[in-house]
């Protein structure tokens, strides 16, 4: 996309004057404020933060510098190294060497955490070895100062060669100086050269051997040989077929620290860094413990820390589960009011129906998730911005690791108990794409709040009369609790299984860094809320509206209701009653109810329900429940009004417990629900993926319909199998 600028930039660098279009790459360790700097430079409106989607994304934005230059700023993924052992590192390396189709960066800004220089400088050395002119941004100088570190900038510059610019990206301090340094280096690339490391004889000899391995490396500069020597075998093989394998044969892993050439490279870089830092950094208060350390003594305490963790997660869950309801109800009421208005404005025809029951219902169905999503993301933004999320992940790591999940998967899974849609969005807090995918795939197994009306329908119908267990525990309550447990246990099992098959990953290596505690910035939180809200409403909302219209059509056409003869018979009954009497009102309502019942039964969804009956009969479900399953694609709780319609109960917009119980009792009277059939239905709803909102969100977040279809298949397959086991097993044991 930036190809026209490419040639221009290339011409520019060869001339003495700085090029008009600069390609500036930002790279750095995670948590160094790289994204903050990127937002400062580009105005932040370029993209949603934190690599949305499962694949690593590259981001680029425009910056207009003081000198009238236009920069294209490329934000590379945060990495600790460039040896390409992870997809992020591969992208960063390929971007820095011009292998991604973008032009070679004119200047690489390496963002360093000034309070944690040694580890950050390792990356600077690697960038320098690749030969790109660099400027080091010594970010978070305020934190370094607080920690009692005094940096000798001139000495650092001397030790490493490239310009070093002290700055605080959060406040914008030092941005102008960084701009000037980048312009100087762009005009004279030699200024940005990072001084080479003095390698030991052992390394120098190895590099000469590397040079002889392949003709392509015969003329390569030393830095490039260094990269090939340490590079991931598969990545190297992709770049130069066979070369990675060849190098790994020639330099096999040696099981002791001094014998392994790849380890030696890192050791010698660190030796140089340690030596330089001895003279460049002065410690005013050695051994002093930071405020964060002291706060961690409490928040990571085995007792107090776990207690506070439970309280904070309980609050978050409560907020998503309960506090969002009034707002969601208000949104629902608003949409209902709008529907009523449209009903008045438009004549009674199909267009009106599709507008109200398709489009408006879909828009309402999208907006109703917004309060939950915004509350959850406000909570997560506070947790993440303050630094607590990393601590929470530390506390639950042991539990989550047993299923091959990282600690950070906890928040998405917890929120999925309210609703899988915000829960799946919350998976974005995890940096590793494989971890995100795994979490997204199992999140729908958490028993969400939309399943509760279904549980109520069944328990009220068939378990209400059972005597309490131990005298005080209601059977229905216990069974509902068991459904929550079933979902959670299955999710852990599925995660464990997928880790060993589909998404191997590297066993979720926890290499967690704990960022210092900070006060969350309202602007950051608001920006996250805005981005997430708009993204969900526009992108996922479009899919939800489309699917709602399709479902409406399925449940509406071909519109075969009461036959004329039947209607005439029923009308005759109406006229036989006294005008204005309650009997007449009842008889009139009966016509409408019967008509709606027939229309649904004869609709495409009705035929679909009957068509799937052979598949669901072994689970104890008849075709009526089949229609209910089709209808509950919109949202699980829709099962209740659909069943009401089929069983000829009057419709009710608000699905409350009493209504659900009433519908369930009608089903029980008709023999469609027995304790065993009810249990089978609950198990099916606990496990199955029926909700197309979730499906649309998975498709959007994984950027792949393949994974959405996979989730659909494995969840519904598991639901069918488990219900089959419950129903047939129960029958074999003599239950009914």
């Amino acid at each position: 996309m930036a190809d026209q600028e490419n040639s221009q930039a290339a011409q520019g660098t060869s001339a003495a004057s700085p090029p008009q279009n600069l390609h500036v790459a930002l790279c750095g360790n995670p948590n160094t404020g790289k994204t903050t700097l990127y937002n400062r430079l580009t105005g932040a409106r370029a993209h949603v933060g934190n690599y949305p989607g499962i694949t690593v994304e590259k981001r680029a934005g425009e910056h207009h510098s003081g000198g009238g230059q236009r920069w294209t700023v490329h934000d590379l993924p945060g990495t600790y190294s460039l040896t390409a052992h992870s997809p992020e590192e591969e992208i960063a390396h390929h971007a820095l060497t011009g292998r991604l189709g973008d032009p070679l960066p004119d200047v690489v800004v390496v963002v360093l955490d000034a309070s944690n220089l040694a580890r950050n400088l390792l990356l600077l050395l690697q960038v320098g070895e690749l030969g790109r002119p660099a400027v080091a941004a010594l970010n978070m100088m305020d934190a370094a100062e607080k920690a009692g570190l005094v940096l000798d900038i001139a000495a650092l510059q001397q030790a490493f060669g490239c310009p070093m610019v002290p700055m605080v990206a959060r406040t914008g301090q030092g941005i102008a100086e960084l701009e000037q340094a980048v312009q100087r280096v762009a005009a004279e690339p030699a200024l940005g050269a990072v001084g080479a490391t003095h390698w030991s004889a052992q390394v120098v000899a190895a590099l000469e051997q590397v040079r002889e391995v392949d003709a392509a490396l015969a003329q390569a500069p030393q830095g490039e040989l260094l990269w090939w020597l340490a590079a991931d075998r598969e990545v190297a093989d992709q770049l130069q077929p066979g070369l990675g394998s060849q190098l790994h044969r020639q330099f096999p892993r040696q099981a002791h620290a001094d014998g392994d050439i790849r380890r030696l490279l890192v050791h010698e870089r660190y030796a140089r860094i340690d030596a330089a830092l001895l003279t460049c950094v002065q410690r005013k208060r050695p051994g002093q413990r930071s405020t964060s350390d002291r706060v961690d003594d409490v928040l990571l305490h085995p007792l107090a820390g776990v207690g506070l963790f439970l309280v904070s997660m309980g609050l978050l869950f409560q907020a998503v589960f309960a506090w969002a309801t009034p707002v969601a109800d208000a949104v629902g009421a608003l949409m209902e009011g709008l529907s009523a208005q449209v009903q008045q404005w438009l004549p009674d025809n199909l267009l009106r129906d599709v507008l109200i029951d398709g489009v408006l219902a879909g828009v309402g169905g999208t907006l109703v998730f917004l309060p939950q999503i915004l509350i959850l993301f406000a909570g997560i933004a506070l947790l993440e911005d303050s630094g607590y999320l990393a601590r929470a992940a530390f506390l639950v790591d042991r539990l989550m690791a047993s299923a091959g999940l990282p600690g950070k998967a906890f928040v998405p899974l917890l929120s999925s108990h309210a609703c899988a849609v915000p829960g799946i969005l919350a998976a974005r807090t995890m940096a590793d794409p494989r971890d995100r995918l795994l979490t997204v795939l199992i999140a729908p197994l958490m028993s969400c709040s939309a399943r509760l009306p279904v549980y109520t329908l069944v328990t009220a119908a068939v378990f209400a009369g059972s005597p309490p267990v131990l005298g005080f525990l209601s059977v229905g309550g216990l069974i509902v609790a068991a459904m929550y447990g079933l979902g959670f246990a299955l999710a852990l099992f599925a995660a464990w299984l997928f880790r060993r098959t589909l998404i191997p990953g590297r066993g979720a290596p926890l290499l967690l860094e704990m960022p210092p505690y900070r006060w969350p910035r309202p602007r950051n939180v608001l920006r996250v809320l805005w981005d997430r809200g708009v993204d969900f409403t526009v992108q996922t909302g479009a899919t939800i509206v489309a699917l709602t219209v399709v479902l409406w059509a399925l449940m509406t056409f071909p519109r075969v209701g009461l036959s004329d003869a039947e209607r005439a018979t029923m009308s005759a009954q109406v006229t036989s009653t006294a005008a204005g009497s309650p009997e007449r009102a009842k008889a009139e309502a009966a016509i409408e109810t019967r008509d709606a019942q027939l229309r649904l039964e004869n609709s495409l969804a009705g035929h679909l329900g009957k068509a799937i009956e052979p598949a669901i009969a072994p689970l104890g479900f008849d075709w009526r429940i089949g229609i209910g399953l089709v209808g509950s694609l919109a949202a699980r709780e829709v099962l209740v009004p659909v069943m009401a319609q089929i069983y000829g109960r009057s419709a009710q917009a608000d699905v409350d417990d009493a209504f659900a119980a009433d519908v369930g009792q009608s089903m029980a009277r008709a023999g469609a629900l027995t304790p065993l059939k009810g249990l089978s239905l609950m198990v099916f709803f606990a496990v199955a993926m029926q909700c197309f909102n979730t499906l649309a969100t998975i498709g959007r977040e994984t950027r792949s319909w393949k994974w959405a279809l996979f989730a659909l298949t494995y969840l519904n397959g598991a639901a069918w199998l488990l219900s089959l086991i419950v129903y047939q097993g129960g029958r074999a044991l003599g239950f009914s």
Partner: protein
Amino acid sequence: MSPRIPKAAATGTPNHSQPQTLADLAVGSVAAVLTVELWDSLGDRLVELGLTPGAPVVVLRRGLWGGPVQVRVRDFALSLHRAQAAAVRVQALAGLEAQRG
């Protein structure tokens, strides 16, 4: 496989006889890294994060029930799984009861 804390490390006597790993050290112990005995990309990552031979580490925290171990190495707090910590061979320098006192 939850490694018990060796008495010597807990009481503060330097222990030179038996090889130790990061997973064995009590909270507050100071040690020098010997090798990272994981010869794959994960081991390389640990070395790149600063666990090079001779680097001093302080054990900051140990998670419950065999949970992660947090250490300070080169000014930065690194958390790693107990199994990974068990692959980092160290030489205990002192069993200081944290730096709190």
